[in-house]
């Protein structure tokens, strides 16, 4: 069973920089054979009688104060590919085709027969598809049939009754035949698909050529459908052209909400997660601004990505208006589904929120603001502990006591020291920074416990020992 989705106003609906482009007073136009024709229109224009394919001058007569945009094929194609990722949720056989010379309307066709059981029947699956598309704000028409071409024919059906009826009762124009052949058929008095399908093949070939017969055979399922299969990309990379320049970060937040919503729908459909996302903001003449979102754990939640991006944007001052936004993710990873434990684990409830909180902290304070300490196997006290940006996997504990606070630069110790234990000889680094020191633990008169050393390299044997403070036992 196949589901066909047609997006007649895709050129407008796929625009990224408005919350709901379908409701704006906008016309998208394209040069077709020397004439500027409307390829997509917003709802206000349709109410005033504008139709697809209308010459711009006619459309202007009917709806005078419309915002006019040039069609951008690349943006449509990118948006359709993102939608392909979404459709992956409902089927593993997805075909997408943008509107072009051969194809009258941008469309997504998917095989749903294998998914019916998972979604609990045809009605529920269609309801879920409708809900998703409405949420994303796309205008669509939908058809279900046993072959892709028949499903497309149903999707073109003008009335609801015809959509639910049989293929034979569909009007002839739903079949998307060659316009000349269709005119000729209509002149012969044929009105419905059933009448055409009843004609003998030999006569059809003679009068209307092989192409028409092939099409009819594909509709009936007697011939393979010749659609190209949509392949899930290795990583998410897409560009969103903005129709107007965005000048404030507040405006960017709105645009990003829609863009990240699409990303989340894609990830949900592809059952994948991402860990890093690069957002490139293109300006007119300045080099693009890059924002890097590194997440602590792979994620696919729209609200989480949005919140992290929001915190990151709060630190940003825009150098110039933004004209275009590009997203690039790292390799898509398979989503690890969480398993609920049989017994409720009180201690670990809430622990899964920690990576999300970490992302928020880093987005606001900077990536390097959160770190973990790692013990390094090095005798040199300065180098035996470093801060890294992810939790260490192993920990080596030293045997001798070490101070909790380490001074970055050793200082002269106060004079009133009481040595408590030691010495511990540390002698290392002859190849680089040679040290030879005797370390002691000592108490001073202020009640502090210090880690002090006596330098043996530079000490003169006849002078009294000089102590340097290197750490504090906090």
């Amino acid at each position, binding site marked *: 069973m196949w589901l066909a989705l047609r997006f007649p106003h895709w050129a407008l609906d796929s625009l990224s920089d408005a919350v709901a482009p379908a409701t704006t007073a906008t016309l998208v136009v394209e040069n077709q054979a020397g004439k500027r024709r409307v390829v997509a229109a917003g709802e206000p224009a349709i109410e005033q009688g504008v139709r697809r394919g209308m010459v711009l001058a006619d459309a202007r007569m009917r709806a005078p104060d419309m915002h006019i945009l040039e069609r951008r094929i690349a943006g449509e194609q990118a948006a359709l590919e993102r939608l392909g990722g979404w459709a992956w949720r409902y089927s593993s056989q997805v075909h997408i085709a943008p509107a072009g010379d051969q194809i009258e309307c941008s469309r997504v066709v998917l095989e749903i027969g294998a998914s019916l059981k998972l979604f609990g029947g045809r009605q529920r699956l269609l309801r879920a598809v409708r809900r998703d598309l409405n949420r994303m704000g796309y205008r669509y028409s939908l058809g279900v049939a046993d072959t892709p071409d028949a499903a497309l024919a149903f999707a073109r059906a003008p009335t609801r009754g015809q959509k639910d009826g049989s293929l034979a009762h569909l009007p002839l124009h739903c079949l998307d035949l060659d316009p000349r052949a269709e005119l000729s058929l209509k002149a012969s008095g044929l009105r419905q698909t059933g009448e055409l399908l009843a004609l003998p093949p030999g006569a059809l070939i003679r009068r209307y050529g092989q192409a028409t017969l092939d099409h009819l055979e594909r509709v009936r399922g007697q011939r393979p459908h010749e659609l190209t299969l949509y392949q899930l990309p290795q990583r998410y990379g897409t560009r969103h052209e903005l129709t107007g320049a965005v000048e404030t970060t507040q405006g960017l937040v709105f645009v990003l909400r829609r863009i990240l919503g699409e990303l989340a729908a894609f990830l949900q459909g592809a059952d994948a997660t991402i860990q890093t996302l690069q957002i490139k903001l293109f300006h007119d003449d300045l080099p693009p601004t890059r924002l890097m979102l590194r997440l602590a754990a792979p994620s696919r939640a729209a609200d989480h990505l949005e919140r992290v991006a929001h915190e990151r944007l709060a630190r940003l001052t825009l150098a110039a208006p933004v004209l275009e936004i590009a997203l690039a993710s790292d390799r898509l990873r398979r989503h690890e589904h969480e398993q609920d434990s049989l017994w409720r684990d009180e201690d670990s409830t809430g622990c899964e929120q920690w990576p999300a909180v970490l992302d928020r*902290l880093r987005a606001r304070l900077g990536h390097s603001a959160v770190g973990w300490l790692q013990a390094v196997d090095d005798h040199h006290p300065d180098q035996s502990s470093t801060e890294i940006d992810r939790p260490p996997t192993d920990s080596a*504990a030293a045997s001798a006591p070490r101070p909790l606070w380490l001074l970055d630069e050793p200082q002269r110790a106060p004079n009133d020291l009481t040595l408590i234990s030691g010495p511990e000889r540390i002698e290392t680094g002859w190849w680089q920074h040679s040290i030879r020191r005797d370390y002691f633990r000592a*108490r001073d008169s202020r009640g502090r416990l210090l880690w002090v050393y006596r330098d043996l390299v530079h000490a003169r044997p006849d002078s009294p020992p000089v102590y340097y403070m290197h750490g504090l036992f*906090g």
Partner: protein
Amino acid sequence: MSNLYTSTSNPAAKRRLAEHEAYWRRFGVHRATRQAELPAMSTGSAALDRLLPGGGYPIGAVTELLSSNTGMGELSLLLHGLAARMAAHPRRQLAFVAPPGTLHAAALAQSGIDCARLPIIHCRDDNERVWCVEQMAHAHAFTAFVVWGDSLDTTALRRLQLAAEKSVCPVFVYRDIRRAAERSPAALRVAITAGAKGQRLEILKCRGPAGARAVGLQAALDQPWQMRPAPVSLASVRAPASNESTASETRSHVARPAFPPLGTR
């Protein structure tokens, strides 16, 4: 009303009394003779636990640790208790917010702290410190928060208190001993000062009678700091019901709040 509290032999009255108390307990009002149930975590030292209401640092509240110097064992004292709490909650984190110096991984490991579960957060100002703790309080994934913030004001401490209540885990704030004279919304304030034999711990404020002190923290041979197993000079094991200083108590070494508690004059 008076018979409600006196005639407790009558079972019906008893029940009414219990209902009445339960009603008020919801607003944090407790009967004077009964101690409120204070969730607390052990400090790792039996002697110190005995001095504190609930038997340890309060959970879901701010504890202020006031020390005169860094390097007096003030962090070891806390890690003593936190190591046990971290071991008891093997998936939870411990957050250090804005430590003033460089911490040493090996020393933390020696104190029994798992560095893999110890995110260290560096902040630029007080507002960020409090914001961090508030954010982390959303995720119930922490055993405790330790904040270094000498300049935190009362509002900030109150926000920390709310975060502690929300996340149901203790928040520890390290401040300078000079802040002891200031008022603070913290539930527990412990001052650490240097003494001749060892560090002196003094409880400046707690839920219940304050003023107890212990000489306990000592530099030991085998580990940096050690709580003395049986403290000899426990000055007056907690007075029963008042904050009045008794003759046996020695003079406090810590600056007192400007206004002594009610009843001392």
